[in-house]
């Protein structure tokens, strides 16, 4: 036992000595702070899949645009549909600019739209860094289902696939059905969007609302080329120049100003399709450094060529714009919020 004690004592002394030997890092200049540091980029999903790839490619390039050139280390912290990571950076992570994260685009709206269990943050207070794209999204139906236009969606019976209440597939389908009293059904419970697509090809369901336009183009363009699918409506708050002009935009389909506002509230998340945010209250000069570095990365030819190779969209939205958007959304009058939160509910 005596030997053990000596060993413990010796290790303790060594530990204290090594800590004392490190110089204090609290210096004002941003570069000094970041120099030689690892910055954690937390990814709220498991490896593989869209949010993970967007996060990892950003981590590979953004470090060199931050003063002091820190190393960006992507780390996966999956859980509760990315709610875990959002809670973590809001409440637990150090508020010094050494951590930021990416989570699902719908997460900031959760609280507003009535989900309270497990949401431990105020979305307007995050330090928004930016979004890599503002993806327009669409409803897609198999041609053989006979649903080709918005008129068809209003008048014919149809079934779309979903993958759980908190996903865009379910939320968007429910909003359309509830707000416009459409005669369609939502069959939910598929593991994910790819499985819904497979079910469409099998004829188990007629289509899906939604599908991001860019992944439709990059992964399943043959469906368009072979004219196997039609696109009755586009989902978003602004008309996309890439989607054929005869496809109506969802927010233009109502004349009721309150409903229009509620639709804007819900679909505005498409503007922040791949959002990145840091904890609230980090020092202003470091927040600025992160935002500037994000914007610079979005123009970095090396980054862009890699994204091109991966067939991933880059249509950046700056952090300030995200911040403004989230604040706008949270400032909507209660009756509009009520319409929106009623619309996302699944009415069988």
């Amino acid at each position, binding site marked *: 036992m005596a*030997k*053990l004690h000596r*060993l413990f004592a010796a290790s303790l002394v060594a530990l204290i000595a090594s*800590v004392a030997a*490190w110089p*204090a*890092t609290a210096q004002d200049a941003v570069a000094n702070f970041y120099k030689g540091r*690892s910055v*954690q980029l*937390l990814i709220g999903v*498991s*490896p*593989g*899949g869209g949010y*993970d*790839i967007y996060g*990892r490619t950003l981590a*590979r390039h953004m470090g060199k645009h931050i003063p002091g050139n820190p190393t960006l*280390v*992507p*780390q*996966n*912290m*999956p*859980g*509760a*549909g990315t*709610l*875990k990571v959002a*809670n973590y950076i809001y409440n*637990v992570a*150090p508020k010094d600019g050494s951590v930021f994260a990416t989570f699902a685009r719908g997460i900031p709206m959760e609280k507003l739209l009535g989900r309270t*269990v*497990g949401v431990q943050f105020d979305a307007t207070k995050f330090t928004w860094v930016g979004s890599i794209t503002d993806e327009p999204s669409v409803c897609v139906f198999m041609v053989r289902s006979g649903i080709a236009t918005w008129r068809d969606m209003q008048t014919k019976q149809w*079934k779309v696939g979903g*993958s*759980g*209440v*908190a996903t865009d597939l379910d939320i968007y389908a429910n909003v359309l059905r509830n707000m416009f009293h459409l005669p369609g059904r939502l*069959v*939910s*419970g*598929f*593991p994910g969007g*790819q*499985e819904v*697509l*497979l*079910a469409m*090809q*099998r004829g*188990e369901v007629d289509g899906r609302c939604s599908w991001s336009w860019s992944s439709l183009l*990059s*992964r*399943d363009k*043959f469906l368009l080329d072979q004219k196997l699918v039609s696109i009755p409506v586009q989902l978003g708050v602004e008309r996309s120049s890439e989607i054929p002009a005869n496809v109506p935009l969802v927010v233009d389909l109502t004349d009721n100003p309150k409903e229009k506002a509620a639709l804007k509230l819900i679909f505005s998340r498409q503007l922040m399709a791949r959002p990145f945010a840091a904890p609230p209250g980090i020092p202003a000069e470091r927040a600025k450094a992160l935002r500037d570095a994000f914007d610079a990365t979005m123009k970095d030819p090396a980054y862009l060529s890699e994204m091109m*190779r*991966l*067939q991933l969209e880059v249509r950046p939205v700056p952090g300030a714009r995200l911040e403004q958007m989230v604040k706008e959304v949270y400032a909507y009058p209660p009756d509009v919020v009520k319409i929106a939160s009623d619309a996302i509910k*699944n009415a069988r």
Partner: protein
Amino acid sequence: MPDQLAMAFHALQLLLQWPRIAILVLGVLIGLAIGCMPGLGGVVALAVLIPFTYNLDAPSSFALLLGVASVTTISDLIPAVLFGVPGTVGAAATVIDGHRMAEKGEAGRAFGAGFVAAAVGGIFGAVMLALMIPILQPIMLAIGSPELLAFSIFGLSMVATLSGRAPLKGLTAAGLGLMISMIGSGTQTGTLRWTFNWLYLFDGIPLIPVTLGLFALPELADLAINRRRIASETVANVNLANQWQGVRDVGKNWWLVIRSSALGTFLGMVPGIGSAVIDWIVYGYAVRTEKRPETFGHGDVRGVIAPESSNNAKEGGHLVPTIAFGVPAGASMTLLLGAFLLHGLTPGPDMLGKNLDVTYSIIWSLTLAHVLGAAICLLFARQLAKFAEMRHEILLPMVMPIVFVATFQATRSWGDLYFLLGFGIVGWIMKKLGWPRPPMVLGFVIGPIFERYLFLSTEIYGNAWMARPVVIGIALIIAWVLYRPLSQTARTLAHEFRHLDRAHIRLSPGALFTLFGMAVATAALITSASWPIEEQIVPRTACWAALIAGAFNLVTEVFGADKPAPAPGGHAAPMPMGPELPVKVTLQRAAEFFLWLGGLVALASLIGFVPAIGVFVFVYMGIGFREPAWRAGIFGVAMTIFCYALFDRGLSVPWPQSVLGDIIPALRDVTGLL
């Protein structure tokens, strides 16, 4: 067809070119090493390696990734046979007969049979994939939700066979497993089921803590309790001659190998059904279909051959939906899809047309990796067996932290560790009391798949889903699988209930444990009464099943005649462990073991994960096992460095914040570990 052949050979040539073949070998070596470590499997290896494939071309990338992913289920046999601890979730079934063989001094034979069966299975899966290429799309389009539902019911029906001669216990365990799998947000209305507002439970309990808890910790606990070397004679017995005997066993049982591989391939195509249950389903299938099933569970080589061949064949099956439709059939395939995207490859028609060469290179990588993996294992089995010579005083302090951190990295939450410990204790009690554990895993893994496709099938097809030809075919197979065990069960139960001794009431440990299970099921029933009806159906049915089977079991425990029934294939047969220890010593040592593990969790929250591992190894060896301080120190430092390198540098695990780091933030800043 000639075009396809030419393409296939072109792909082989590509793969054999330098440096691709070297990359494949490297992948195989990494995969073999990871497969040996309990709790780490192909998913982990892929997550580490995918970033390294940025700068490789597509065939090289898949050579590396498939090299790693496909051989973890070969080398996982090694700890399964030597220590009874499955190396990956897929080797749990192999433990039953494989470890028993080692105890009988037949480790070499188990290795020979297992490695070769694994290679044959892997090649079978690859060949099936190659043959199916022209018809991949039609096949996938023919398998709809009803067919997937039928497959999952087929898997669940194996509970009957895997319960062996303890059908009531098996059914109770399966019901409880299914019930536990329903924890989390429901797929239909998003109702939070049994989550107690704990964020961790929103996604349900992950697979790794459950399987490691049920299968690895009980074995480690028994190692700590019995305090003896695994089997000193095993080492002497691993040589080429007795490995060759195992190889010949594979030849003799070729028809079993083919059937197991085919079943493994087809089950692998069903999204969600992975190696954690395929090995059990095929084990149950072997027990059900083979002649002389009574030797299963007592060191029968067929009990190694069947799960090993199926588990390696499944990789080919997994790739079918992945390549044809970009639908991942398992966690490893989700990662592989990520790699597809990194290389600008789109799963779907392109992989069967424009990029057919890549598809073929994937198939060849799969084949070569299995051959290489098995060959390397066979050659080095003798050296690897030396690990069995390690004393438990050294082995336990080394293996426990690996199991511990491997579990944590699964979802990176404290909850993983609580459930690892919880399921470890439950698993150990089940083992001691002769409760079959596989039914619990089957219920746990298949439960959510069953619920999902039950709803999809009825929503989409109404009752017509039952009239589909494939569904009817599978239903007939299920009836055939169930017929014998059910009639047997009915007979034994009738016999038991006729011979109840109502005068004697015995409140045995078995009865208490049954009451515990019933109490959990009752509490679950009470707390789920207010859920929407569609979220109630499957979980509450599972609760009732557990409760009713448990009640019947309670009757036999309290009033039944004394007879600890061994369960062939049920993994429930008490292992003959030399001279039996007194119950008091066993319980005391078990409590010590689980307290040490609990202490490790507490220590990690106090001083951070990586430092806790070093301190734990040092203290456990030094105080727990009274090893000299210098040795404990060396191992403590070595394990710390190893875990730091693997989990921090390699896997970039975000470490949870510790109390020490909160008190001295500078330390956290500097190390990034606290």
